[in-house]
């Protein structure tokens, strides 16, 4: 389903980034990094208009010819970015939302782990599995 899933810390460094194909990994890194621009833009716009009651889901950040980049931001300003192949037209907004929610839940579990140092890269196996699940559904 997703071709790249990234978790980005509040300070904008990657906590977790994984993509389907290793040969495109670099490209996804660039894509995800650039998408932070839009994430920040959206966060600041939301902050102005809605105050506290805001949505985690940021929607489509920007489309490229080949990919669609969706964003999500938690209360602690940790960002999730999911990159989806543009050719994959079966994905609806709702499905993306539920993917993000799943991702958020799993991320929360990781954070609840007392042995995890907040701010360090995520190495949780369970989280990895959730992400793998989201990426493998493309088949």
């Amino acid at each position: 389903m997703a071709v790249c899933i990234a978790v980005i810390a509040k300070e904008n460094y990657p906590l977790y980034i994984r993509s389907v194909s290793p040969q495109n990994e670099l490209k996804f890194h660039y894509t995800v990094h650039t998408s932070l621009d839009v994430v920040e833009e959206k966060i600041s716009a939301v902050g102005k208009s809605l105050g506290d009651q805001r949505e985690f889901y940021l929607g489509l950040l920007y489309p490229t010819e080949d990919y669609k980049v969706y964003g999500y931001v938690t209360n602690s300003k940790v960002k999730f970015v999911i990159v989806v192949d543009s050719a994959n037209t079966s994905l609806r907004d709702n499905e993306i939302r539920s993917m993000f929610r799943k991702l958020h839940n799993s991320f929360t579990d990781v954070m609840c782990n007392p042995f995890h140092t907040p701010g360090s890269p995520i190495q949780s196996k369970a989280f990895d599995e959730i992400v793998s699940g989201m990426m493998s559904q493309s088949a």
Partner: protein
Amino acid sequence: MCRGPGLVHVSLHSPGSAAAPRAHGVEEVSRDNLSVGSSASTCLNVSPPCVCVCACVLRTYGRAPKMIHLEANFVQFKEELLPKDGTKALLTFPFLHIYWTDCCDAEAYRGSVKEDVSRWQSSLRAHGSADWLIIVVDGGDARKKNKGNILPRSSIVDKIRGDFCNKQNDRCVVLSEPLKDSSRSQESWNSLLLKLRTLLLMSFTKNLGRFEDDMRTLREKRTQPGWSFCQYFMVQEELAFVFEMLQQFEDALVQYDELDALFTQYVLNFGAGDAAKWLGSFCSPVLNWSGLLLRRPIDMEKRDSIQRGSASLLDLRSYLFSRQCTLLIFLQRPWEVTQRALELLHNCVQELRLLEVSVLRGALDCWVFLSCLEVLHRIESCCDRAQLAANASHTVGLWAYAADKLKALGHLCGLVSCKGPTSEDLNRTVDLLAGLGDERPETVNSLQSPYKKLKEALSSVEAFERHYLELCQAAMEMYRAVGRLRSARLLGKSLAEFYMSKGEPERAEALLAEALRSYVCEGWTFPVTHTRKQMGECQKLLRRSADSLRTSALLAGDGNLSAEERTSFCRDVLDYAGQPADEGGDPSATLDMGVLAQLTRIRFGPDGACVHSGAALRVELTLRCLMPVAVRVDELAVGVHLDAERVTKGGARGAALPGTVDFEAAVTAPGRPSSLSAGPPPEMDEAHDRSPSDDSLSSAGVVCRNAHLLVRRHDSGSPPDASGPPARNGASGAPPAALKEGAPVLRASGITLEPGDNSVVLAAASNEAGTYTLRQLCVTLANVNFVLPHIYPSVQYHVYSQEPQLSVRPLSEPLLAGLPQRVKFTLLTGHYAVRKGDALQLSNSDSMPVLAHVGCTARIANNGGAVAESALSVQSSDKVTSIGLPPTPPYHTLEFHLEVLCLIPPGPERLADERLTNGEAPRRPRSYSHPDTAMAAIDQRMSIDCPWSIYSTLLSLTFHIPFKTEHSLLSAGNRKYIQVCVHNVSDCDFTLAHVKLAEKGPQRRASLEMPCLNACARQLLCSKQSVYFLWEATCKEALPSSLECVFSASFCPRGRCEDAAFEPFHYHFLMDNVPTLYSVRADMVPPAGERHCRSGSLCGLEVVIERAARPADGEPAAAAADDKTDAEGLGSGKVMYEVADSSSNWAVCGRSSGLVSMPSSSGSWAHKVHIEVMPLFAGHLPFPKIKVLKYLPHNASSVQADADSQVENDSLSLLDKTLDDAAADTASVRSRGSVQSLGEQQHRGVALPRLDPFGPGQVFNHSHARQVLVLPAADEHIVEVHAT
């Protein structure tokens, strides 16, 4: 134009000209355009584009009512204009048919008009049109002609109504005097227009509804074979046109969006394998990629091709988008256009891919490029500059996309490489340009059309570069303006790649550096690695050897690269280092340590990081080498800063230093970028502010000692590998400072750093005392230096130089006086080396002799443990004890034990002043009571002359006296007993022996005997217990008035009972007023006739004060010599007695005190006093207290006759006071007496007598503690019960 009775039908205006809606009033417009011929020929003249604009409320099914403007054309009726069955054209649809007639003549009507109208009606009916209107024009002149004949004229209207409008009377309207300006004319015009409007709207609503229904029906048939999207497209677009014409742009847009969605769905279905047949026409190869065309409201060319079914996918999409764009711009939503445009372009590319349409390579890029620019031009044409700038975020995507596509085209056509296009590239260019077709007529004359741009860009390398740069710069500027810096940098990086392929690395460098900095700053390692590789190539091309070296070194340590790549980069570094200095240009390059290795830990050899000067100290550095292969470095040096002052202040025992400093925390955690990691952890300290005067705490707080490192701005702190050239980056890129000149340096050479952790051991300098701070770390690899400019957190070690220190400590606490005790001498040699023959000279003192011991050994130790033992020679002379020390190296500890004995001072008397041999000030063992042990303590000072100092060392030891001794004098009549109590206050048990009491002093009396009343010779005295000894003092003569005694005993700790172990113990004391002077005897006399006293009744207290036998002969003489007054007091003085009962058992009635004069004659004498007392309670009551006091007149010679009464009052007042005091002890009386005496001294003129108590043994009370039985009162009828 038309003559005679005309027929007109109303049709809608074409939307092509609907762009300018008319804002005129309805009536006005209609009057202008609808003119009725003024000639008598009654012909109706309709001016050619005859428009009737109606404002009406349109109510369509399922939608909210809307106010619309309807424009209508008046067209002359022609049979062929009537719609055929099946034509769905809504735009040219005749909505309302009007028959105009000015016939006022019944014959004419019957003759021609009626026939004409019925023919018209039948042809309408044949075409199913039920919307018609007959207008009868009533010319004013005609009326004038047939004045009075109103009826026939009206009958024509009636006839028409009767003939044609059988049930619809409103289908026939009279227009009266249309050319007159009368109210009647006005009225008829109004009603006509109203009618026209109503009927037109009715017809319109009906037809529109029907049209929509038909359209839906058609759409429902889409699954049937043979259904054509293009046909349907035309139908729905018709509706859109209608809405557009009605200025319902929103609704019109909805129609196009529906078409768009429908088409998209079909394409998706195709992708899913469900191919619709009609879609085949869209799958034909793309032959034309001329881009969007947004300048025309309707691109009829494309529309026609769609209608024909020959449109390609791009044509359809382009047409759809151009329509949507037009409507959106009508709706004032230009920013939606840009957003949709981007979606459309992405979508088209995807769709073509999905439909597997064969497209010439690069054609799509052309199409996208042209389209982007076309959209941007269109937006620019409808917005002003300020608006565009404010909404750059909407347009920037298109700019970037266009730049991207142009770059792709450039690559395709060989315009990017520095060599220029090949012939193959040129062929491709020609093919691409061919697909563009001719330029649109709209833009032929404009200088900057997308078409021209593309053509020009593809024409030559230079033009391409110019256009590409222009686009990139514009996009980057916009990105920056809207704050999308990352996007700008990515674009910049792509521009840099372009420069690199053009062979212009100098222009690429800054762009790459900026991108790299941002990636490093945000910790994106993959992009960092990639960009850094590009940077390295760029720097290599620029021959920036130092920067290139740094980049290579960083890449060699980059974990994202493969081992081969890393090794090759590492080789680059080593090659550079290996170059001879002259060839490399830069004699010695200096790089940051971080590129080579990370310092992870520093550990000191002795753990405390604190050594004495000259001692060996190892510093173990742990370096995590990042290189992929083992690197042999020439030298590793640590710059050290020596701060000599710190040690004198803090001393060697100052702040304890950690022996191991870990830098792991400071070293970048994986993933977290160095610039973001908190860096050094905050070093927090408590801070107390004490007031200087009394050391009380005035404030307390927490201080962060490294706040300057924590609060600095992150942005300015350049990452370690700020890759830009130093010249451009300014200070931040300056090479790290090499080791400071002249500072001490710890070195190690010839080290091989293996990948991973390496341990390097250095010998630390420790010659000078002070605090050494490790400042820099420098690794030299041929002519490359890797420098860590600041080691943080700071690592220090202390080197101290210590003065020799001598201390004496008891081996066991507490030291007991009187017994030999072992004390431990500890000598810390410090920097002093004890040589052979050095000795400690202890000044002997009589109160604490040092017990010489043979075979005393000294133990020499250093920090680690015992080093040696050697014999100690102790030599005592009468003045000094000399202790010969064994040779001891510096910074060792020398320990030995000595036995000393502190003599117990024999009593309260002070020892005679002593002098020390070395002329020290006279000192005296200070004895005081220890608060914890309740033992009297003696501070015994020692003065020791040490060989290393000209000054004597003064040490003090505290000894505790194990015993507390008290004495008391007991009397029994004239017999005297001396009691000595020895209390053992120490924790050990003792055996006492040889207990003796002897009189001391010069005048020893032979007659005085003190027989011992104690039983055994040896007495065990346990800890915290007391033992009492008693002697009777007898004398053949009278007892001496004062007696000086010495109690002596010998003691030893329990269990060691050999005689030698016993130590003597002496206690001196002096007793005064030994002999008994008076005896007091009291008796209670019950009232007369009674055998016992009764409570409440008066009894008599008989007190007999009797003088004892005169003291011995010698005694009065001494007493007289001593104190004359006293002798007189004894001999002829007066004695005051007083009876007081402090326990309120008795009520003293009447006189309670009085003076008794003693006759001066010697021999016994007695005085009897009777005092009335009354018992207050029944029972065995103790006698009231009888006190006898010495009465001393202030001056013996001025005793007055009436002194009795005077003193009586005075003493009474005194008695009252003493009675007030619950504890009327003698001390308080004495103090009063002394106060009085003081008063007497001051007022010598006033004669005030003095009262003095007798000593404890001078008055003996026979009736002391006697009790008398008191019966209850006989008539007691109240029984008091005290229940407690």
